[in-house]
């Protein structure tokens, strides 16, 4: 008989299996699932662009409205999609915990990784598409754009980890998080530049790490962009690491409560 596998081996093979499985169900569940992945941000951008052109705003903070909107929206989606997918990982994979190799935290982490990858892919495709249409969305400082997107992905993961455990333990929390998403969307500077918000409210909004992430991403596209004063990418990372740590701690404490009904 073969010898027992080490825990690392087991976890790695579980991650690999989960990743393939999640990818298959995300990309082939229903008709043209990949198409809907692209369509949501596309429709969203086009609609916002339409509104901005009606009120004749050609530029925001010194850069083209289209670029400002697209970058902000896609960066925000990086956070939101990662967050919500991670949040639902445990409940939609309940059936898998029949295999004792699969732990709740595995499904959450794998979903976060997959969703981050997909969101990045979607962003690249849409930026490339916009460039082909003649809209100049080419980052002048690609590394800081990646840095900002990565930070937002980490934030999404941390948020999702905490939200999934909290939602399973106290179902009401899940509902509150659900309707807190829309205010968060407005308070993150997707629709209007936070830089124009008067003090002291701006400082309050700056507690929201997503604001920093979004403006950092825009700054990466155009270094001459008038980003919000007090922008700090370190704050994004610090916040993300704290939430991820908290989320993992919650999983470590409550993993058995998540598995049993």
């Amino acid at each position, binding site marked *: *008989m073969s010898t027992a*596998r080490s825990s690392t*081996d*087991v976890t790695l*093979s*579980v991650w*690999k*299996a*989960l990743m*393939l*499985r999640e990818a*298959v*169900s995300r990309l082939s*569940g229903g008709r043209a699932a990949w198409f809907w992945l692209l369509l949501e941000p596309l429709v969203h951008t086009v609609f916002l662009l339409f509104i901005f052109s009606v009120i004749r705003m050609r530029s925001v903070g010194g850069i083209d409205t289209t670029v400002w909107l697209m970058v902000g929206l896609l960066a925000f989606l990086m956070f939101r999609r990662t967050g919500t997918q991670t949040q639902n990982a445990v409940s939609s994979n309940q*059936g*898998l*915990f*029949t*295999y*004792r*190799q*699969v732990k709740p935290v595995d499904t959450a982490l794998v979903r976060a990784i997959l969703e981050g990858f997909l969101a990045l892919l979607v962003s690249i495709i849409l930026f490339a598409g916009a460039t082909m249409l003649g809209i100049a969305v080419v980052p002048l400082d690609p590394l800081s754009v990646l840095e900002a997107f990565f930070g937002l992905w980490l934030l999404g993961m941390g948020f999702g980890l905490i939200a999934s455990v909290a939602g399973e333990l106290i179902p009401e929390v899940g509902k509150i998080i659900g309707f807190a998403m829309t205010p968060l969307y407005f308070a993150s500077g997707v629709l209007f530049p936070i830089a124009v918000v008067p003090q002291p409210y701006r400082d309050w909004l700056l507690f929201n790490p997503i604001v920093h992430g979004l403006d950092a991403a825009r700054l990466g596209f155009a270094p001459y962009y008038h980003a919000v004063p007090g922008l700090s990418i370190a704050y994004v990372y610090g916040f993300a690491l704290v939430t991820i740590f908290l989320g993992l701690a919650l999983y470590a404490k409550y993993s*058995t*409560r998540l*598995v*049993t*009904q």
Partner: protein
Amino acid sequence: MIVVEDVYKRYQTDQGPGKWVLQDVSFKIPPKISVGLLGSNGAGKSTLLRLIGGIDIPSRGRIERNCRVSWPMGFGGGLQGSLTGRQNAKFVSRIHGHADDIPGRLAYIEEFAELGDAFDAPVKTYSSGMRSRLQFGLSLAFDFDVYISDEVTAAGDNAFREKAATAFKKLSDHASIIMVSHGEGTLRQFCTAGIWLNEGTAHWFDDINDALREYKKCQISKQLGELMCRRVLPENQEQLELEIEKIKQRQSALETLEKGLHGTPLMVDHEEGLRIMQEARQLGMQLAVAGQITQQGYMLKPEARPLLKKYFAAPYNKHLELYDLLSQCEKAESTK
């Protein structure tokens, strides 16, 4: 070797901690001994299987698994509805560390489960029989020392059950099974020892037949007890008498049935026989019947028929003869 030591289990409900499902359960399952779990609905059979399978942890006490134990196969767990049978099989191969060997395992599972084209259809379109066949095939594709089955082996038609039994017999020189099943025949076929769960405690029996008998006795006495202290009686004198008569009849039927457990064939008249049959059916007991009743279309469970032929050659026409199948088979085997 699986050691269960002082295990207590209760679930958390919305109203605080629920009542104890298992209380002070201790036993040891030696290697290569197959065990059947008995108990009425809600006695904690599935809970115990989940605990042994390691997908839940006891509230108190500990469980030691010094061998490779399969996941508990049963009711839909472990299969994702939106994925096909093949994709599910691949997933299970991967998490068990057989990523390099997927085609071979897939071929085995495909062949064993006999799903045909449905193997490439989403699992949510499967019937429950197909699901069980897939689950059974899945677990047999991997080498475990102990297989845990929650009512899976009872699924499917006779041909599949035969196949499952032979496949399992082949494994039985190095593996064993822990199973829950409501089919007496299935339990006798697969298991040597038995655990009877009653009111939260577990009773170990070295012989599955003893466990079955104890379980049935308890079932009957529970029924009798229920009969005694039951519902509102009708006020109308005539109806009351009818009702009392009915209860008396049921009681005598149950009592006769209990006697039958000790191995004597029951000689009863036709009407009484019908009542006993009915009670037995409600209790999920298997009776062998010789006499008119078979000709009148009271069909026996299919697995009882060959046994009946084997042991009771001459039909007895005047009365009905009811046998507790279990004790009769035992007797026949011991005289052989």
